[in-house]
Each structure stands twice: as structure tokens, then as C-alpha cells.
């Protein structure tokens, strides 16, 4: 038999081990490279949206109508250098394509003295004809932009230039969101490394005797080591390729939802990007090699020292304490994540040691021999299965925390939707129609009707500036403006995050404004701060309006100011106008009919509460689809690994179980011992994961979420879900025991 054959014979005898290793590498590569690709693409989009277009301007029509190809021609024929910009969804994958006309854009290049023309390089830029073809084939309307460069000069009458911005200034939030995902990805990678190492090392332990045998036959140690490194490299090469491919498939699958949530949450368009194969392939190879064969690269003396260190409780305690303290004091997402990583490392060192100490102590105290034996065995398991045990604990903690985050998010969102969508019917006023007479008519119709409520909604934007204590005006910001009249029960049901005394009455009188949480956080405005809406008229009083309340406003990045209808700026045309109607005992069809007649017969868009709610929920679901998919897959990974590990481990302890038979226990009694042992281990891990999970929930909700999303959440725990996880752990334990029983039975017969 050749040396290669001798070395590989191990996997012939244990094909499951090889399959487990391959599957884990494949799954982990898929998971991580998928996430890496999406976040990379998003980060790229962010950078492009921020840098390539910073300072850029576009030509818009003064009448507010969207620009068309006719406007392009009109501007070009007037001598203005404009380039068309048409964003469309990429038909071949997630993200967007940007169609440009390089012929028209050529003047932007030559006009740019500083050389800072928009960086229109490579993906996602395509010829605008292709974008227009895609646009024609998609039902979604793709608006055309006309880029005029940094200093376009005067435009012909009927046009003005406006900053070309791909959304509000939410770059930081978007970046944090991506960092969140990346951190999750890193955690998945870490867990995978632990699991891989565990399975691999167990295999190595089994192969120890064959290595000794080979050494006796005169094969030098270093040759064996080299072969082992080669073996793992080969395995990586075979699994990582398909893994990266599956990763891009995963990215494509999740990409649209991911893109939609990025856009919904941060107004950050996800542009189509190329696939980066190399980074995931290299990183995964490095992880696999480090996890599996790093021992071979570390001198034996250091290894011994590390092994001794593993027995002590102190390194773990110190790491966990330092990390925990750091989470409390550091600011910034990256630092928080680093602190969390330190805590995880500490806990990872601590848990197997604590488990085995605990088991040994219990064993020492027990009187029943079988029980003492069981505790001892559990202690051995905790030590020998330290890596997969820690990995399972981390995974469970992660799953628990993410679930708590998503669930509390969901709950908060639900509650918020309930407040926001208090009315049963929503009518959009057609463009150009006068909503005033309809409002008056509606007020007359619904006055005194049982259970009826309504209000008129106007949306637009306004320049808002805060006024300092010195009466000086601070920097102004362009915010969304929401005007509601009358202020009634549909509105006063809103839960306010902070409020002044009797805020709704003051708002109704026009004695103040309310702002959404995004605006409050971004500009640091608090209750009582005075805000001025609109440009300051010369000589006008500048005392502004006090902030009366801060309301939650999920699912979008823009800051918003809420005012009473009477505070709507005179002469400003709303960008949206509508009615919210809770008809009570009145007939909604009659009301719609009456309203329609008031503005000349053009039928309004009527939306039912349920439809709006469904679409809002769809947006919400998309936000967490990636997070959920990741945690779920990680759990599957960890569960599978523990199953395989437990099986391999207990096979190595089969001798002890057969000893139990020799002591006179029946097969059923031996299995019962086995079952208790396995359940004890997995349930113990799950119980230990609980505090870590709860702590991680707090970190996510209390520390990371406000930084990543711009709004905070109430922290909630979900014991029902803990129970589910415990049941899952028990099932894993049962699985190990079941597999063990078969393997013991097989060995007994052979």
C-alpha cells in the first residue's frame, strides 16, 4: 500500500467524517461568501453613490414634472452639457444597472477641470439603450435623470439644477447595517472554524496509531505532516469552488430582498456588481487550513503550554470580564463588535472547563456509582468535545439573540402599524384636484357619526432649522413635512417616545411640531427645542415652534416633521395628499362617492387598511430575510457537526459502554445511560447558551441597533423560544444517542 493510500484509508473506514468535513466547508463557504458578496456589493454601491456623485447636479423641470428624452434634447440643443442617467433593475441578478449615454457624457469629462467627473467605471454602467430596453420590459417605472456636472451654469427657462443625490444622507446608517451583517458573517466563520477543527482533530486522534505505525516503517514525521496539509488543501479546493458558486446563487436568491431593504431602510440603491471569487476562496482556504492544520505549524512546546492554559479558569474569566466591561463603555459599532468578540472568546474558553469542573464535582459528591460514572463521563465529554460544544453554544446564543431582535422588531413594528394605520380606508387625492371642499364636506358628513374619525394628510418637504438659546438659527436641513388636520383620535393614539405636556392639544392649536425618531437622533433635537420651518422671511419673528413629541417612524431613513394642517406653508403644493377615513356607522361607498364629486369626478385611489398593512409587512420581512437565513443555516451546521462529533466521540468511548454490559446492565439500561449522557451534554450547552444569548440580545437591541438603523427598540425576551431551542438541543442529543445505539449494536454483533 502506498503512503497516500495508507493515509487515506482512514476516510475509507470513516466516510461520514470525510462527508461531514466536506459538507461543513461547502456550507460555510456558501454562507459566508454569499453574505460577503452582498455586503461587498452594497458597500460598493454606497461608495459609488456617495463619491462618484458627490457635488454632481441634475437638471430638473421647474414645473416639477419628471424629465423625458424631450427635455434632454431641449437642453442639449440649448447648449447645456447634460447626460442621461437611467437606473433599472438588473435583469440578470440583484442590484441595479445604470444606463448612461457615453456620447452625451463626453462633455462632462472635458468640462471637468478637476478631473472629478462622475466615476462611471465598469459595472453597473451600461449603455442607456440596454437600460431603456430593460425598463420597457419591467413594470416598475424607472425615472430618467439628466446629469449636468458640478457647475452647469445657467439653464434655459423652465429648468433648474438640483443636487443629484441618490437619497438622504444616510451613509453612516447604511454602513452600520452592512457592518452588522459582516459581523454576523464573521461570527458564522468563527463558528465554522471551531466546528471544522473539532471534527478534524477527532479524526486525527483516531489516526494517531496509524501515524505511529507509519513512523515505525520509516516514514519521516515531516513527510506525514506535509501529506496532511496537502490532504486538507485538496479537500478545500474541491469544496470551496462549489461553495463559492453556491454562495453567489444564495446572494442572487436573497439579493432582491436585500436590495429592497437597503433601499427601503437607507434609500441606498444596490447597484449591480461583479462577482468576487477570489476573496471568499482565499479567506475560506485560510480558515480551513488554520482551523485544521495550524497545530502542525505550531511548535510542540507552545502547544503543550496552550493545552495547560486551557485547564485554567482565569484566562476565560478575565477575557469575558474585560469584554463585558468594554461593551458598556466603548462607542462605535466596530469597537462594540470587537468587545463582543472578546466576550465570546472568554466564554468559549470558560464553558468547557466550567462544564467539566462541574461534572467532576458532581461525580465526587454522588453516591450512586452509575450516576458518578455518568458525571465523570460527561466531564470527559465536555473536555474532549470542547470545540463543538462551544460552537453549539455560540450558535444557540446567536439564534436566540437574533430571534429576540427580530421578534421585538416585529412586535414593535406591528404595534406601530396599528397606530399608524388606525383608519380603515385611505383615499389618495388625484393630482390637481382640490381637496379643500372635500375636506369640508367630509367634516359635515362625519360630525356626530358613531365611531367615525377622519383626517386630511398632506405631505411635502420643508427646510427646518433649530433655533439656539441665543436665538441664533442653526444649520437648516431639508426634511419631510407631514401635515394632518384635524388632529383627532386617529392620531392621538400614536405612542410617543418622548413628549411634552398634553402634546396633541398643543399640536392641534398649531403651537408646536412633532418630529420622528430619525430626525431626533440625527440632529439631536429634544422636547422643547424650537424649530423654524421654511426659509426665514426677512423681519419675521424667529422664535420658531417647540418640539412637542417624538414619534417612532420605522422602515425609512428620512427625518420628518409633523404639523397641524393650519401650519402647512402657504402656497406650497403637496407632493401627496389624501384622506384617512374611519367611517364608523357611515357608508364608505357613499363617502367616497361624495368626496369624488367634490373634486370634479376623478376617482381617487382607494386603499384598504389590510392592503397597506400587507405591503408594509412585506417590506419588513425582507429586512431580516438575510439575517434569518444565516442564523438558521448556522444552526443546521452546528447541529450536524455536533451530531457527527458526538457519534465519533462516543464510538471512541464504546469500550466503556461495553464495560457497562459486562457489569451486568441490560442493553436497554446501557442505552438509557447513553441517552442521559447525550441529553445532559446538549441540554447543558443550551442552558449555558441562554445567558450568553440574552446578553447578546441586549447588545444588539440596546447598543448596536440604534447605531445601525437609527432607531431603538424595547428589549424583550421570549422564553417560549428558549423552550424551542431546548427541545432542539434535546433532539440533537437524542439523535446522537440513537446513532450511538446503532453503532454499539453493530459492534456487538461483529
Amino acid at each position, binding site marked *: 500500500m502506498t503512503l497516500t493510500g495508507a493515509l487515506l484509508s482512514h476516510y475509507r473506514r470513516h466516510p461520514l467524517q470525510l462527508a461531514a468535513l466536506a459538507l461543513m466547508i461547502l456550507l460555510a463557504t456558501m454562507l459566508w461568501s454569499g453574505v460577503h458578496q452582498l455586503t461587498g456589493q452594497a458597500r460598493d454601491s454606497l461608495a459609488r453613490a456617495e463619491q462618484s456623485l458627490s457635488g454632481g447636479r441634475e437638471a430638473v423641470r421647474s414645473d416639477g414634472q419628471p424629465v423625458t*428624452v424631450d427635455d434632454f434634447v431641449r437642453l*442639449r440643443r440649448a447648449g447645456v452639457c447634460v447626460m442621461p442617467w437611467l437606473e433599472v433593475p438588473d435583469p440578470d441578478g440583484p442590484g441595479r444597472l445604470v444606463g448612461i449615454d*457615453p456620447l452625451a457624457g*463626453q*462633455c462632462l469629462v472635458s468640462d471637468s477641470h478637476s478631473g472629478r467627473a462622475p*466615476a462611471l467605471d465598469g459595472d453597473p454602467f*451600461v449603455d442607456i*439603450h440596454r437600460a431603456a*430596453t430593460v425598463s420597457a420590459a419591467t413594470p416598475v417605472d424607472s425615472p430618467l435623470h439628466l446629469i449636468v456636472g458640478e457647475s452647469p451654469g445657467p439653464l434655459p427657462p423652465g429648468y433648474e439644477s438640483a443636487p443629484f443625490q441618490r437619497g438622504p444622507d444616510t451613509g453612516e446608517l447604511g454602513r452600520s447595517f452592512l457592518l452588522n451583517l459582516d459581523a454576523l458573517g464573521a461570527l458564522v466563520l468563527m463558528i465554522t472554524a471551531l466546528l471544522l477543527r473539532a471534527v478534524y482533530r477527532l479524526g486525527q486522534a483516531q489516526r494517531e496509531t496509524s501515524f505511529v505505525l507509519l513512523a515505525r516503517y520509516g516514514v519521516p514525521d515531516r513527510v506525514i505532516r506535509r501529506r496532511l496539509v496537502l490532504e486538507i488543501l485538496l479537500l478545500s479546493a474541491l469544496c470551496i469552488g462549489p461553495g463559492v458558486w453556491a454562495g453567489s446563487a444564495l446572494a442572487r436568491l436573497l439579493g432582491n430582498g436585500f436590495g429592497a431593504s437597503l433601499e427601503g431602510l437607507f434609500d441606498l440603491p444596490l447597484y449591480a456588481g461583479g462577482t468576487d471569487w477570489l476573496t471568499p476562496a482565499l479567506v475560506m482556504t485560510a480558515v480551513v487550513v488554520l482551523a485544521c492544520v495550524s497545530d502542525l505549524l505550531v511548535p510542540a512546546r507552545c502547544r503543550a503550554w496552550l493545552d495547560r492554559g486551557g485547564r485554567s479558569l482565569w484566562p476565560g474569566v478575565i477575557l469575558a470580564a474585560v469584554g463585558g466591561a468594554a461593551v458598556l463603555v466603548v462607542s462605535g459599532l466596530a469597537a462594540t463588535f470587537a468587545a463582543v468578540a472578546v466576550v465570546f472568546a472568554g466564554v468559549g474558553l470558560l464553558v468547557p472547563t466550567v462544564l467539566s469542573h462541574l461534572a467532576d464535582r458532581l461525580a465526587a459528591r454522588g453516591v450512586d456509582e452509575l450516576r458518578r460514572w455518568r458525571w465523570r463521563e460527561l466531564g470527559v465529554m465536555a473536555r474532549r468535545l470542547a470545540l463543538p460544544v462551544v460552537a453549539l453554544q455560540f450558535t444557540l446564543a446567536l439564534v436566540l439573540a437574533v430571534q429576540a431582535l427580530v421578534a421585538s422588531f416585529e412586535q414593535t413594528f406591528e404595534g406601530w402599524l396599528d397606530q399608524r394605520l388606525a383608519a380603515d380606508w385611505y383615499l389618495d387625492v388625484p393630482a390637481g384636484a382640490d381637496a379643500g371642499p372635500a375636506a369640508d364636506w367630509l367634516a359635515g358628513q362625519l360630525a356626530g357619526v358613531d365611531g367615525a374619525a377622519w383626517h386630511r394628510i398632506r405631505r411635502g418637504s420643508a427646510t427646518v432649522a433649530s433655533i439656539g438659546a441665543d436665538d441664533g438659527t442653526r444649520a437648516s436641513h431639508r426634511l419631510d413635512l407631514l401635515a394632518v388636520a384635524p388632529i383627532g383620535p386617529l392620531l392621538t393614539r400614536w405612542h410617543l417616545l418622548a413628549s411634552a405636556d398634553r402634546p396633541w392639544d398643543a399640536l392641534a392649536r398649531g403651537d408646536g411640531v412633532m418630529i420622528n425618531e430619525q430626525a431626533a437622533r440625527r440632529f439631536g433635537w429634544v422636547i422643547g427645542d424650537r424649530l423654524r420651518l421654511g426659509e426665514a422671511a426677512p423681519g419675521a419673528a424667529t422664535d420658531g415652534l417647540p418640539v412637542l413629541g417624538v414619534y417612532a417612524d420605522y422602515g425609512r431613513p428620512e427625518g420628518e416633521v409633523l404639523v397641524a394642517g393650519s401650519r402647512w406653508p402657504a402656497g406650497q403644493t403637496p407632493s401627496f395628499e389624501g384622506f384617512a377615513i374611519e367611517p364608523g356607522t357611515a357608508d364608505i361607498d357613499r363617502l367616497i362617492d361624495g368626496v369624488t364629486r367634490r373634486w370634479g369626478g376623478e376617482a381617487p385611489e382607494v386603499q384598504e387598511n389590510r392592503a397597506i398593512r400587507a405591503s408594509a409587512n412585506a417590506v419588513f420581512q425582507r429586512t431580516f430575510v438575510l439575517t434569518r437565513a444565516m442564523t438558521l443555516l448556522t444552526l443546521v451546521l452546528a447541529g450536524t457537526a455536533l451530531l457527527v462529533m458526538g457519534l465519533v466521540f462516543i464510538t471512541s468511548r464504546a469500550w466503556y459502554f461495553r464495560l457497562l454490559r459486562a457489569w451486568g446492565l441490560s442493553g436497554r439500561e446501557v442505552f438509557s445511560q447513553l441517552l442521559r449522557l447525550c441529553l445532559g451534554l446538549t441540554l447543558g450547552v443550551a442552558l449555558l447558551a441562554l445567558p450568553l444569548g440574552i446578553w447578546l440580545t441586549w447588545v444588539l437591541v440596546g447598543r448596536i441597533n440604534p447605531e445601525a438603523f437609527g432607531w431603538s427598540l424595547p428589549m424583550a425576551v421570549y422564553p417560549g423560544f428558549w423552550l424551542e431551542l431546548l427541545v432542539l438541543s434535546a433532539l440533537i442529543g437524542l439523535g446522537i444517542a440513537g446513532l450511538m445505539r446503532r453503532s454499539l449494536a453493530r459492534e456487538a454483533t461483529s
Partner: protein
Amino acid sequence: MRPVLRITERVVASARAGLTVRHRLMVALWSLVLALLAGCSGDDGASGPGLAPTLSGGDAGGFLQPGPDTGLRFPADFGPHPRYRVEWWYLTANLTTAEGEPLGVQWTQFRQGFRPRSPDQAPPPADQWPLEAAWMAHGAVSYQGQHRFEERLARGDVGSAGAVAEPFEVWLDDWQLQQVAPRRWHLTVRSRQAEPGFGYDLTLTLNRPPVPQGDHGFSAKSASGQGSMYFSLVDIRIEGTVTLDGKRLQVAGQGWFDREWSSQFLKQGQQGWDWFAQHLDDGDKLMAFRLRDAAEPFVSGTWIPAGGDPQPLTDAELTLTPLERRDGYPVRWRLQVPSEGVDIEVTAPPGRYVNDGRFPYWESPVRVSGNRAGVGYMELTGYGATDD
């Protein structure tokens, strides 16, 4: 003859499939434009940086090829020819200022078709931003040894660039040549930057009907039959203003207008051309060109007497000899038409008159001396750094 936009079938295909640009901006936009207009980078290097056209021989990609039987039709031939691949409208003017100083003006607009279309076929809708043709315009002013030049690009069928036969109009952005009255045209060109910049507003009075070049308008460009449809307006009175760095100059003089279209001009191996259009003092006109080849150059021209019919000139009847070089360009020439007793020297004024666009080429006014006097224009293409 005008610079031909280089294009290959491959590029047309990639342009049609939707182009993706791959390099950093400057490069990116430019490379896309180049891809659209110039053909693949591979033959860029092979043919040098000059204008030498490499309209590859053989397949014209569904475009029509002109021949001696094609014939000219007016006024339709003032308009575009979408069944042919390349065409241009070209005007040069030898003007003088109120102070009597010579001033040269050039304006050219090119159309490069990517897909042939019959004239009765409706163009694709503009909101699809079709890519069936690209337009390029060149504007230049030569004055007191200074040469100013600007290049414009546009996509066809969108509306920002185009041409119509009647009433005659050719435009790209805010540059336009249009008929304002019978036999009267107006040309407006304004560079994007005011300083250093240029512009001109010229009124053109057409004094002579179109003159067909070559064989009833078919101008051969090689012995093997490649060629183009070509006619000229050789007697144009021009008046108007030229603006240089914000300063307005009253100008007047004479102009030469060319219309030329084809799908395949040159045979492979031709490196560039030397082209001359001369107004001689007694009203006679001379058009002459030479296509340079590794072997024997192809020489052709037309003698246009003031009162008679144009006479095509073959290489036996016309000699072109470069006499002096400046910056690699032959700036002084001897032109001989023995049958007409013409033996003249054509000289560019001091200065560097290179249109530094995508394809640099020499375009300068010239002074005629020898046994006849006069003025004219000279275009020299395909003289790159590596050229002969």
C-alpha cells in the same frame, strides 16, 4: 475627403449588445466612446494614432455600397443616408477680418451608422435611446497662428443631433447649419468654454449649383473600386462674425462645402490621405487628394473652371509633391495639373493646425502661390508619431 470614423463589425455587435465600460472614468467614458466610434483597440495600435480609416474590406454589414451608377439626387442628397455607414457635411471658409487679416473656419459633422435603415423606415422611438447611429461634430478656427478646436458627440435618433434635406438643416447640440432662405444658409458654432473659446455665426450665400466629384458623383478611392458619393458647393460667399475669447470679429470671404457618403471608403493598407480644396484667384477651383499606401499612392481630383464643366483628374493628370514638413506634417506642397497649365505651391501659415480630437489630424487654411494665386484648405490625416 473627411476623416472616417473607424468601426468594425465586432464593435457594432458589442455596442448593440449593450456596452459595459471597464476602466476608471476618464478612461471609461473615453473607451466606450472609442469602442463606439473607433473600433477595437487592437487595430488602433496597428494603424497608428492617425485618422487612417480601417473600414475593413469585404462585408459592409448590410449597408449599401455606392458605385458609378448610384447617381446624385437633389435636394435629397443634402439629407442623411441611413443605408450607408458613414457620411459627413463639411465646410471650410477662407475669411478675412475687417483689418484684412486672414482667418480660417472649419465645421464638419459626421454620421456613423451601426445599422442600416431604409429612408422610408421609421426611426426607433427616442425614449429607447437607440444606438443605430452616432454623430460627431468638429469646429475649428485658425487665426494669427493659433488653432482652436472642439469636438462634440451625440447619439443618433434621439433628437440632439441629426440632419434633414428640406428645409436643409444639420445639427448637433447647439451647433447647426441650416437653410434660412433660398440659397442662403446660416452656421452657428459655439465652444463650451467661453475662455479660451471660440464661436462663429456665419451667413452663407450659395452662388453655384452642386458640383459632382469623380464619375457623376462617384469618387473612386482606390483602383479596386472602393469609393464614395461626393459633391461640393465650391462658390459660397460668407459673411458674419467670429468670436475669439469673447472678442467679436467681423469677417467675410469664401467657403467650400462638401457632402460625402459611403459604406466602405478605403481598401486595407491605406494609411491616410492628403486633401486640398483651392480657390484660385480667377474663379477656378481645384480639388485634389492623395491616398497613401505602402505601395503606390492613389491620386485623384477635379478641375472646376469658373465657367465650365468640372473635369475629373486621374493620377496621370495630377501630381502632388510634399516639399516641407512641420511637426511631422507636410505643410508645403507642389500641385501640378499640366493639362490646365497649373503649377502651384500650397503652404500652410506658421502654426500647428492639428484638430486634437479622438483622431488628431491636420486641418489648416493655405495660401496658393506659383503660376496661379489663391487660398484654400488642406487636410492631412494618418500622420502619427510612427508615420512615414
